[in-house]
């Protein structure tokens, strides 16, 4: 069963790759633009740290590491589960019928049926930053966090997109909640205090995507390490549950359309 899903995933990626290769210049431009887009944030932080040197214990090196983990985990999510942000659109427009009629795990099939190849730009960017900023002994932990943060990103996307089962038109809301989380995870966690800090470690999981992993890479703590992995597993479990619960409310629109 699992092997068959992986085989299907592999086939989807192959098709997406051949589509991307059909428009090579477009593909290369998009990857390049993504790298440039990310670099601008580093320019912002470079100007900032050039003036202020330190931000509550965070230095430019820490911010480089933060961007590395955020871009790799976000990019991997976009590459392997590229449809994660379209779920609410599929629900609202009654387009889940296609997946419901096939003998495959519905949620997994939805997630893999699109692969954003330009997210390769994010991954390349993140890997280059990791090479610059990581010591060899940090690599295994970094890889674990890239995967756990990737899981949190995808699971959170499923959660907020599943709102469409309950709210109707939730496309805009889910998009803003997801990108709000991405924005919050792109700033040093040390700037948040009080209620804001509690929120980014609970309702909006930005702290577990970047802040805690960076602290642990600097100074390992087994307790927080286990909490981070536990949180990633919990949010994944929750997102699957919420999606399937919502699915019971789904109503088809009897829409006929062609998937190309």
């Amino acid at each position, binding site marked *: 069963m699992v092997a068959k899903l992986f085989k299907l995933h592999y086939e989807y990626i192959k098709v997406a790759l051949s589509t991307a290769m059909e428009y090579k210049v477009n593909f290369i431009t998009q990857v390049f633009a993504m790298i440039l887009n990310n670099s601008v944030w580093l320019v912002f932080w470079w100007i*900032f740290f050039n003036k202020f040197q330190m931000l509550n214990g965070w230095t430019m090196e820490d911010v480089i590491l933060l961007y590395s983990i955020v871009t790799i985990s976000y990019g991997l999510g976009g590459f392997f589960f590229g449809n994660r942000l379209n779920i609410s659109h599929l629900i609202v427009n009654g387009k889940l019928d296609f997946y419901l009629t096939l003998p495959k795990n519905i949620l997994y099939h939805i997630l893999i049926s699109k692969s954003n190849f330009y997210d390769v730009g994010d991954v390349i960017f993140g890997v280059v930053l990791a090479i610059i900023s990581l010591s060899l002994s940090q690599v295994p932990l970094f890889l674990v966090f890239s995967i756990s943060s990737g899981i949190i990103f995808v699971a959170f996307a499923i959660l907020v997109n599943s709102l469409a089962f309950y709210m109707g038109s939730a496309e805009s809301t889910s998009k803003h909640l997801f990108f709000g989380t991405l924005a919050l995870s792109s700033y040093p966690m040390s700037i948040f205090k009080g209620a804001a800090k509690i929120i980014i470690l609970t309702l909006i999981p930005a702290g577990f995507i970047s802040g805690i992993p960076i602290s642990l890479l600097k100074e390992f703590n087994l307790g927080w390490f286990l909490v981070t992995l536990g949180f990633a597993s919990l949010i994944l479990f929750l997102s699957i549950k919420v999606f399937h619960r919502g699915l019971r409310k789904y109503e088809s629109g009897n829409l006929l359309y062609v998937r190309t």
Partner: protein
Amino acid sequence: MNLTKYYYIGKINFVNSFVYVWDRVASSAFVGLIIFIFTQLWQIIYSEGQIISGFSIAMMLWYFVMTESIVTSLPSIVKRVGAEIKEGQIANYLNKPYNYLLYQYSTYLGKAVFNFFLTFLIGSIVVLPILGGIEFNFLNIPLIFLAVILAISLNFILMMFLGMFSFWFEESGSLRMIYNKIVFTLGGMLLPLEIFPQWLSKISKLLPFSYIAYYPAKLFVNFNFGLFWQVIRTQIFWIVIFSGLTLMMYKIGVRKVSINGG
């Protein structure tokens, strides 16, 4: 040339914006979140009563509210115009009794003014309780508003200019992304140019992008007449230059359009 029709196009779009108000509130709330992050960030940097590069903490945050409200007031015109050109919808404009550029301008300006006020309101709700207001002469409001309108117009024409490249290139999305990020940084949306290293600040001041974000926001937090005249003069200069270039590209580009019925 009769300009009344453009006034009505703008007015219709301004009024129309109220129909989709909640969708826009969500977008402005997102900007509000970013402004909140920056209040947290600057509170770490500033100690009690400190002035950094001529900015108190309240000035720094109100500056940011202003730049965000201006820059995010326009949708991604590069992408929209690019799509209109690629998908052939541009043909709809060719047989209408209006100038293409002015039509687009009045359409987007109407929406942008609405979006500007909404984001500014949400930004104020975030900043006011945390940091309070700034010293401000209310008589300057019409002058600052003029600089804001010119900033939005300059942003519009630069995006239209980039959109025109779609007559020749398929992919305009990447251009949009890069342009946005240039305005964010070199334009001074995220940080005032005083924070930049001197060489970079000098380059940014020469480029048109700083007249979209930095200068109007600087006028807002620290108004003086000398700066005001310099800002609006330069804004008008860049608007005229890029309007000419965009019109030229449109005239050349539109000849390439082939219409195959509809």
